[in-house]
């Protein structure tokens, strides 16, 4: 729910409540005032009757009209004096309510019960009018509130929505400072200041990490390059068998170390979103190119490769990462295969499926996607291939799944159609 709607709903609800309660109080108090007025005029009538009795020793004539009625009944000294409202049926086809006062009166030793009534019709009319006006005011107020909220709040909150939009579009890798609309409202100005400060800090730290990654790569790789070059030179000299084995072992280790370093740098760079630049890439093309690369290797190990490639498999991503994704899956499928096994690659409009024969997994397959986890105890495997794949999928919001059925490992990557 938008803030504005929430605000509107709350405001209107509160307004209705206040107006209803106000209306009720208004109604009750006006009614009380008017009734008291009626009662006072009834008391005047009572006094007139008593005066008449005192002066003339007889009751006035009983009268009966739409407005006023005076009646006398035989009574006793204990007849109570009381006010009440009575309903006397229809008068002029309207319900007629009267306010009446009963009181005892002694006329020449005989007790009577005198009743004087006055119509409440005028009072009712007044109250009705009051209610109508109140309802009209409620309606007008609600419309006004709604309109004010719409117009004024929308305008007032505009800097907020503008900042929000900028935040949503903010891209760390873009390297651009956030341009926020200036505003005269203190709260929003503070918000904008806080946001741009945070953004600047994030960009700074991002750049720092980026430079660190590059520097780490540089600092690590130069010594590795020296090590590897010296070992290669040592290779060219006359060595006895034991020395040769030591040199070869060293060279292998340095090789592993430099690959490990490169994989870690790649992971960090994907993490840091340093692979900007997307374009539409045909996965079928990538798979074909990578598969051709391994043609003879597959032949040598007698692994059968079957491709079911649809040209509708198009993804929006960085080209290098698309290559890395397919390459890592393919080398994984080759590495964990039997000699004489098979690999099947399917590219469809929204998914890439790579399945291969191989030994069943020895532990929960989910851990293969974690760094440095390996299915086998092979010392030559780094266990980084699949975590790179997962990282790439994560970066682009692709869904990746692994399962093992009927003796086949299967990795499924599902990607959205490019917009």
């Amino acid at each position: 729910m938008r803030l504005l709607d929430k605000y509107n709903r709350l405001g209107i609800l509160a307004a209705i409540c206040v107006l209803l309660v106000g209306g009720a109080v208004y109604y009750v108090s006006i009614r009380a005032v008017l009734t008291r007025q009626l009662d006072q005029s009834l008391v005047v009538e009572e006094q007139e009757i008593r005066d008449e009795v005192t002066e003339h020793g007889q009751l006035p004539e009983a009268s009966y009209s739409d407005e006023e009625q005076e009646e006398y009944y035989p009574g006793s000294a204990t007849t109570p004096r009381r006010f009440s409202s009575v309903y006397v049926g229809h008068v002029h086809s309207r319900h007629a309510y009267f306010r009446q006062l009963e009181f005892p009166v002694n006329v020449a030793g005989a007790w009577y019960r005198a009743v004087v009534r006055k119509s409440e019709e005028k009072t009712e009319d007044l109250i009705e009018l009051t209610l109508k006006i109140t309802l009209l005011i409620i309606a007008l107020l609600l419309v006004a509130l709604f309109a004010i909220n719409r117009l004024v709040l929308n305008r007032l909150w505009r800097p907020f929505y503008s900042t929000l939009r900028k935040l949503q579009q903010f891209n760390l890798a873009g390297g651009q400072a956030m341009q926020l609309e200036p505003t005269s409202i203190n709260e929003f100005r503070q918000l904008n200041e806080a946001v741009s400060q945070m953004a600047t800090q994030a960009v700074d730290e991002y750049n720092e990490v980026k430079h660190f990654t590059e520097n780490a790569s540089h600092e690590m790789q130069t010594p590795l390059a020296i090590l590897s070059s010296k070992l290669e030179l040592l290779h060219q000299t006359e060595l006895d068998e034991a020395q040769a084995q030591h040199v070869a072992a060293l060279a292998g280790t340095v090789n592993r170390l430099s690959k490990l370093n490169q994989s870690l740098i790649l992971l960090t760079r994907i993490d840091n979103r340093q692979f900007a630049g997307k374009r539409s890439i045909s996965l079928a093309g990538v798979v074909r190119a990578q598969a051709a690369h391994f043609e003879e290797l597959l032949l040598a190990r007698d692994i059968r490769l079957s491709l079911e490639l649809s040209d509708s498999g198009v993804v929006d991503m960085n080209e290098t990462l698309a290559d890395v994704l397919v390459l890592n899956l393919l080398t994984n499928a080759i590495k964990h295969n039997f000699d004489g096994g098979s690999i099947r690659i399917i590219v469809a409009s929204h998914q890439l499926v790579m399945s291969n024969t191989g030994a069943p997994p020895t532990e929960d397959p989910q851990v293969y996607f974690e760094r440095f986890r390996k299915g086998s105890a092979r010392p030559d495997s780094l266990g980084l291939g699949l975590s790179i794949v997962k990282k790439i999928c994560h970066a682009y919001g692709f869904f990746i799944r692994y399962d093992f059925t009927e003796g086949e490992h299967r990795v499924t990557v599902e990607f959205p159609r490019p917009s």
Partner: protein
Amino acid sequence: MFRDFCKKRPVKILIVEDEPELCSSIATYLGGENYVCETAPDFKNALDKATLFDYDCIILDLSLPGGSGLSILKELKAMEKMDGVLIISAKNSLDDKVAGLTLGADDYLPKPFHLSELSARVAAIIRRRNFSGSNLVKAGPIIVDTVAKSVTLQGRPVELTRKEYQLLLYFMVNRNRVLSKNAIVEHLWGEDLEGNVDFIYTHIKNLRKKITDGAGGDFIKSIYGMGYKFTAE
């Protein structure tokens, strides 16, 4: 006379690398290939040498004390010099690679690399730059035409698969060198193929058989525990 001069003219290489040990390794390895190697340890030195003299190939590190290798590249381009340039960079960033190749570098090799790979890349650049039509690489009875990508043994053409061709050329430009299995695998399949590299044996066995059948001699020696060595003559 002039033709003789052309033929005998030594291939000159400038190595621009600030790390002295790496620089000396490269110079030692390439020196064995009958190249004349000069070195430049910093930006100024490199810029002076690159602008004053002509080289067949400049091996250019991008991050140098005193400036970026890319500036040297720009300067060479501005002077319209025809030197071949191979960028070696530890900066694993794609930007450097793209910038370098856009500025006219011939190739890009990220550190760390195998010296044999560097040597193969340098040889390829020199072949491409060489206008005397030297697209033939020869070793004994083996002749590889790098333009037609064809191989003849004692004058008879021989059918090689793509990887066998790459493997043979790699051996020939690194003749008399011991090549480790890792270096060979990386040359053929790139850096990314981690894992056991023993499968390379099958490829080498096949290539060896084709050469032995066609040329009547075994040129590829297996060096126990270390790798393989190609020798001719």
